[in-house]
């Protein structure tokens, strides 16, 4: 057995170097292998006591679509887009080696074996932990996604100004 006593209990009272108190993630991708780490970082940020915001834009919006919603959009182009790119955390695909879904299925299988929380679970956890999940209004309009197509517990849809204002003095990640 190895045990190390790491520091005096009062060591933490010493002044720490300046740290960002906020974490802002721009979730641009709808790929499983990007959404996953984005949500891992968001929940970890919240666990580290950082005020955490995730702004979902472009392809990143599709994981926020309710899993049971099949077709979104108002016109044929938006509907076609949703047919080819089904939304919801249960339908995410790998950016590489997807092999018509076989790769994603294998990845999810491996993740279960390693007791890794799924994107779905991480999204629930993020909401519970008070992570602000902000859908980008402009992308919602562009892709034909209504508030009713998206999961509960999201912040009011906002734009680039809100995102950049939030990002001031924060750690920012574009994923």
């Amino acid at each position, binding site marked *: 057995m190895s045990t190390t006593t790491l*520091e005096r209990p009062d060591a933490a009272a010493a002044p720490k170097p300046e*740290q960002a108190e906020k974490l802002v993630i721009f979730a641009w991708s709808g790929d499983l292998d990007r959404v996953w780490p984005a949500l891992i970082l968001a929940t*970890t940020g*919240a666990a580290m006591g950082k005020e955490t915001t995730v702004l979902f834009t472009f392809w990143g919006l599709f994981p926020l679509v309710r899993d049971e919603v099949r077709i979104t959009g108002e016109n044929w182009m938006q509907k076609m887009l949703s047919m080819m790119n089904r939304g919801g955390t249960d339908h995410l695909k790998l950016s590489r080696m997807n092999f018509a879904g076989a790769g994603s299925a294998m990845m999810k299988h491996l993740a279960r074996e390693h007791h890794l929380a799924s994107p779905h679970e991480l999204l629930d*956890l993020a909401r519970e932990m008070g992570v602000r999940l902000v859908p980008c209004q402009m992308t919602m309009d562009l892709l034909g996604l209504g508030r009713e197509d998206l999961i509960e517990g999201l912040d009011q849809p906002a734009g680039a100004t809100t995102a950049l204002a939030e990002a001031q003095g924060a750690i920012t990640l574009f994923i």
Partner: protein
Amino acid sequence: MEATITTSLDLKGLSCPIPIVRTARAMKELAPGQLIEVFATDPGSVPDFAAWSRSTGNPLVESGEQAGVFRFVLRKKGVMR
């Protein structure tokens, strides 16, 4: 006065970031000075618990390993009442 361990968490078998997330949540329930003990098997948790401690200011008072199980003891920051 030596503080005793108030809460013990069994997070064996769970992967990043769940051990940290669960510990952070449990830590919220503690009063300053109280200790929490965590068991985990994710080897990444060794640097991660140290980093979480440095970043949040809650001292990691013990970090050990026995038969592949890591044990961490953290103290809730703040002044004991």
